């Protein structure tokens, strides 16, 4: 059955051939002279036979239908089978059935032609596929690193919070925190969270000393390149992050030694920020109320 297509592919099927014949007549499907078409159809079948083409069964069935229609038309009107009276019989009219089929097939054939246009259009449409943008991986180092001044001004903000509370009565605090302890706590936090906001680190501080100690711990870790203080833009909140991998290699060695030599490690750190703190901060006046804060840190490193 399916094989006939190979041998005879000009007409896909009998409906195709019929449409072709109707097109040749240049008339509307509804107005076509089926009797004449029937004759031509059979002529084509004969031609196919002559050319020794295989004729699919569908063609033969169609030829039979056409012959039926033709024979009915041959009869004088009063001798035809009564088909015109009732609606139901109307449906049996082979002409109507055939025309209905032709009209429907034609519609799909036209739709297929439109779909073919789509096919060609799609063939010629090239979607934009941009190459992957190789954005550098966002590492903390790529952000602008916060300068020492940024850090100082940030800690100043924190200290101001305490200055108000502590203003009049200065309690003597037990030094509950050492820098090395803070360093460990800090490292722990940063490893867990990968990035911490600077202000967050001081959230739980109970007094100025603790703030100072924490701050010194930060400075120390920055100096050791174990953490990075980054800032997305000037004056934005500072992010404390774990240092990027290359520095990490260093860090592991430093880390190993750190707990043991915490006290030694702090030593070199202190001088560095110290002068900065005392000189760089504005409005430093040691015991005056409005801004008494900044004088304190450099003077009070009483850690261990």
């Amino acid at each position, binding site marked *: 059955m399916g094989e006939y297509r190979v041998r005879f592919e000009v007409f896909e099927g009998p409906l195709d051939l019929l449409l072709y014949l109707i097109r040749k007549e240049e008339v509307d499907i509804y107005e076509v002279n089926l*009797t004449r078409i029937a004759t031509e159809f059979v002529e084509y079948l004969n031609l196919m036979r002559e050319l020794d083409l295989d004729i699919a069964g569908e063609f033969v069935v169609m030829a039979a239908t056409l012959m039926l229609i033709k024979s009915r038309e041959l009869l004088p009107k009063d001798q035809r089978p009564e088909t015109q009276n009732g609606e139901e019989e109307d449906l049996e009219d082979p002409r109507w059935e055939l025309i209905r089929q032709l009209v429907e097939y034609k519609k799909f054939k036209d739709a297929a032609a439109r779909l073919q246009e789509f096919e060609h259009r799609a063939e010629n449409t090239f*979607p934009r596929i941009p190459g992957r943008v190789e954005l550098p991986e966002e590492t903390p180092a790529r952000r602008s690193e916060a300068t020492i001044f940024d850090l100082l001004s940030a800690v100043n903000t924190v200290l101001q919070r305490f200055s108000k509370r502590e203003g009049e009565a200065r309690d003597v605090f037990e030094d509950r925190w050492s820098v090395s302890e803070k360093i460990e706590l800090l490292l722990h936090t940063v490893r867990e969270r990968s990035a911490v906001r600077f202000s967050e680190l001081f959230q739980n501080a109970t007094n100025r000393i603790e703030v100072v100690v924490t701050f010194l711990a930060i400075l120390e870790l920055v100096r050791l390149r174990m953490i990075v203080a980054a800032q997305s833009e000037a004056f934005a909140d500072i992010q404390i992050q774990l240092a990027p991998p290359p520095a990490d290699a260093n860090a592991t060695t430093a880390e190993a030694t750190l707990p043991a030599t915490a006290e030694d490690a702090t030593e070199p750190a202190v001088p560095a920020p110290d002068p900065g703190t005392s000189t760089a901060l504005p409005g430093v006046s040691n015991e005056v109320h409005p801004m008494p804060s900044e004088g304190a840190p450099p003077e009070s490193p009483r850690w261990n």
Partner: protein
Amino acid sequence: MDPSPAPPSLKLVLEAFLFSAQKALTVRELRDLLALAAQDETAPEAAAYKKTKDEDIEAALAELQSDHAAAGRSYRLLCVAGSWQFASTPEFAPWLRALLGRKARPPRLSQPGLETLTIVAYRQPVTRVEIEQIRGVSVDGVMQTLLERGLIEAVGRAEVVGRPVTYGTTPAFLEYFGIRSLEDLPAADELRRLPVQRPEALLTVDPGLATAPADAPSPGTPAEAESPKEAPANPTASEPPTVPPPES
């Protein structure tokens, strides 16, 4: 920081997404991207589109699409199978082929393949028998090809005797033809499951439709005038000449 700058229009934000996307994006994906962008604390203006509705995205895309069409550039914003992307217009294909080579695409469909696929597309879910009724030929081989190419698939079974398998088109069908959705098939309303209406003329007058009006030169329409030109072995003389030609 605080006074967040007025964000660019949604339309342009979507344009930026689609311009840089590695693949076509659905409305849903665009919506999720908007929500994701809104989480960026460093860009407070992105929060403006945090909870954008799908309808708003669709409307903005439609607007963007007509903007681009009106601009008459060499590319358009297209929606294929529900995903949006920028693509060149077909008339630039000769040059783009030089740049990109011919598109890697399966061979074009044969005429029977196209016709069968068209029937499936408009009539889905449809059985093999229904397709054969429309095309008037067996479609076994063609259906096999279409199934293998992934353009159609079995979608269920018809509730008739034998419960034959019904077929429908796949998303690959929409992609292959560059169609947005099945609703966007041309003349879809006309070709869906609507019975062909029997024309007026056929109901009122019986002969004449399939018969050449032999003599009786009824004041002819052009079509009428044409049909009797060479009625060969056409014994329609018995036809009573009562036939007013069907109009139009």
